[in-house]
């Protein structure tokens, strides 16, 4: 039996207001860094195109297949805050999905941050605990599986997650750590007793990136073709980890992405050797077949599958270091409101907008950015950080 483990990342960042050097230090205590209007607009747009229709479709599929179709989600803290502020019906639809018993929830840092890369992991741990409390409050559930921001993973993070009591952790099934080995099994970190789920990036990206690409030999991708490909995979598990916004947002309705999704369970279950599991069930059912050793952080982002998406140029390092320095000062000071602002500024997207990576990745970056260029992204973000720094000195 080979189990299909489908998992969706659901995230929206808190985009910044335009903030010029002339705004630095101008506004005494109540900083207004976040562009509520833009954030509201984008959230509503994506909710209507993606979150609500896809949740609805998935709920119907789970009911239709009587729980044989099983999926997992991770919801970031910033995403949930938007739901609660702008459209509580979105959260209600996730609650309905969870109540079917065929849906699992995954842990992560509340702010979808890079705190897992800081010099010590106390801030990371606090943000994971914040997420834990949020999931408990919404779903009365303690997640068993952890996935760090954009699947950023190294030995240190794996060890910490093991110590915090999780059973499993998710990252990218890249050759960098696997060599000749297959991502379709569970592995064990060299320094911890938890299990590692590895994303099958080839099959995942067929849906996430290539689905509507006419230059791709697999085009047009149909559910029966895709199910056939999966039926021929060797291994225990096929981990399909996908941005939730793929459905209706990155891939528009017109591409046929919803038709594909609606036929997928039926087509997959036609093959006797295939079934669906949640991430917790995958970890309960299967055993690791080997160890992975990851001294340098990997992720599922861009073609490089490392952290260069966020820390790839001097501008990104400058912001990252500034952010860390501000945090040290803030924690000594203990100002709850500014601490919260600082945490929202840690959302990895702010650094993602500053990436200058060229060619294909650069185009992907531009698609997701509201800035004219990474340089504008830097100026704005750095100006905000300078303002916050002045407020605490």
């Amino acid at each position, binding site marked *: 039996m080979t189990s299909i483990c489908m998992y969706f990342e659901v995230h929206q960042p808190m985009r910044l207001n335009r903030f010029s050097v002339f705004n630095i230090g101008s506004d005494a205590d109540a900083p207004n860094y976040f562009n509520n209007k833009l954030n509201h607009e984008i959230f509503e747009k994506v909710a209507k195109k993606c979150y609500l229709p896809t949740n609805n479709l998935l709920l119907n599929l789970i009911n239709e297949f009587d729980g044989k179709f099983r999926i997992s989600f991770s919801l970031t803290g910033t995403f949930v805050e938007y739901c609660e502020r702008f459209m509580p019906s979105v959260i209600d639809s996730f609650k309905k999905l969870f109540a079917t018993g065929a849906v699992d929830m995954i842990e992560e840092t509340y702010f979808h941050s890079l705190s897992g890369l800081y010099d010590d992991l106390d801030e990371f741990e606090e943000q994971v605990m914040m997420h834990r409390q949020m999931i408990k409050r919404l779903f009365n559930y303690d997640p068993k599986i952890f996935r760090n921001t954009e699947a950023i993973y190294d030995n240190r993070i794996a060890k910490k997650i093991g110590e915090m009591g999780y059973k499993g952790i998710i990252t990218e099934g890249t050759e960098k750590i696997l060599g000749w080995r297959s991502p379709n099994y569970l592995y064990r970190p060299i320094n911890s007793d938890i299990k590692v789920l590895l994303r099958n990036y080839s099959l995942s990206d067929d849906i996430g990136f290539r689905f509507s690409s006419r230059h791709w030999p697999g085009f047009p991708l149909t559910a029966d073709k895709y199910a056939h490909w999966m039926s021929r995979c060797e291994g225990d598990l096929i981990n399909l980890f996908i941005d939730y916004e793929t459905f209706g947002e990155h891939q528009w309705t017109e591409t046929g992405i919803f038709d594909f999704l609606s036929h997928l369970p039926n087509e997959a279950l036609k093959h006797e050797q295939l079934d669906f599991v949640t991430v917790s069930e995958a970890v309960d059912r299967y055993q690791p077949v080997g160890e992975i050793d990851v001294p340098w952080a990997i992720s599922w982002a861009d073609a490089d599958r490392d952290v260069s998406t966020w820390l790839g*140029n*001097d501008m990104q*390092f400058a912001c990252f270091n500034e952010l860390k320095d501000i945090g040290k000062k803030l924690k000594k000071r203990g100002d709850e409101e500014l601490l919260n602002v600082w945490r929202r500024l840690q959302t990895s997207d702010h650094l993602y907008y500053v990436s200058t990576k060229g060619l294909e990745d650069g185009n992907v970056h531009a698609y997701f950015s509201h800035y004219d*260029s990474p340089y*504008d992204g*830097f100026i704005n973000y*750095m*100006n905000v950080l300078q303002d916050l720094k002045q407020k605490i000195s």
Partner: protein
Amino acid sequence: MKVAMIGWEYPPFKAGGLGTHCYGLTRSLADKNVKVDFYMPKTKHSAGNSGKKNLVIKEVGETEIFPYDRPEDKELAGQFFESVYRYNDLVVEKVKGNYDLIHCHDWLTMKAGVALKEKLGIPLVLSVHSTEYDRSGWICPNDWFINIEREGMEKADRIIAVSHFTKGVIVDKYGINPDKISVVHNAVYPIGEGEKQEIVLFLGRLTIQKGAEFFLRAAKKVLEYEPDSRFVVAGTGDMLPRLINQAVDMGISSKVIFTGLLTEEEVRHIYRISNVYVMPSVSEPFGITALEAVSAGTPTIASKTAGFSEAFQNCLRVDFWDTDEMANKIISLLRYDPLHKTLATEGKRELDLFTWDRVAEKTIDVYNRVM
């Protein structure tokens, strides 16, 4: 393939991007085995021997005045237009031989191009480096020029525009079929980096089109926050007296240096030592100066509508009238080293795409389409 190219200026003597373009293009065409006879007005400073077997510079007549724009002085303007006509007539007379096509540049050479196409019965390619709308800064463009330009564009078999922005103007304002227009972005011979100083540079003709007044307004704002910064306005033009007055009125004249006209070597030097280059053009078909600045390791803030901005990724873009944002970006470049460094490094890397070889290749593609 043999081309009769009708130009107006050629280094060492040049007033604008047209001369720079013709220099780079003809030399690379010659290297690619296209035979080019380059016709230009005879000057005191001879362009001389090209040093290339396939490229012959042919100077015709005797023309002394070289304003790229329309001179404001009425008498000078009269002489200027007359000399343009005289040059065009002379070229039509002089161009003889077995050419495969005519290639002319801007309104200054269009009449000759059209006449030669008819006289020799061969195709005409027209490069548009700027239009009357650009040169007037979109304020009262002159029909006299527009009519010459429209006739040239209509008669040309194919048009090369230096940017999509300019292609848009040719389509919208001159009513030309877009399928007839190819866009070929400009290129640069890299200048090389120097020891940087805290200098913010404007370099260009001091005309309405180039927007130096917006540069001064931004300078005023920057100096309120960064009082140690210095500003250089390099170049000359009919706006010079007005700009000097503007600087005095704003109380920043001790921080702004007006250099007047610079030699080629002085231009390279000022690019090398400047920390920031600003190109606030009201209308800019391309803006080769921005590429020159980048090639000297100087990050560039360019007008959003400039052809350069549409073609080049590693730069900062502003609306020319938004002097607050211009100042924001200048200050950011002065304060944040990582921004400066990344723009300089990535900019130089991107320059590899902007070579005259590539311009020549794309131009040959255009030639092949009309032959």
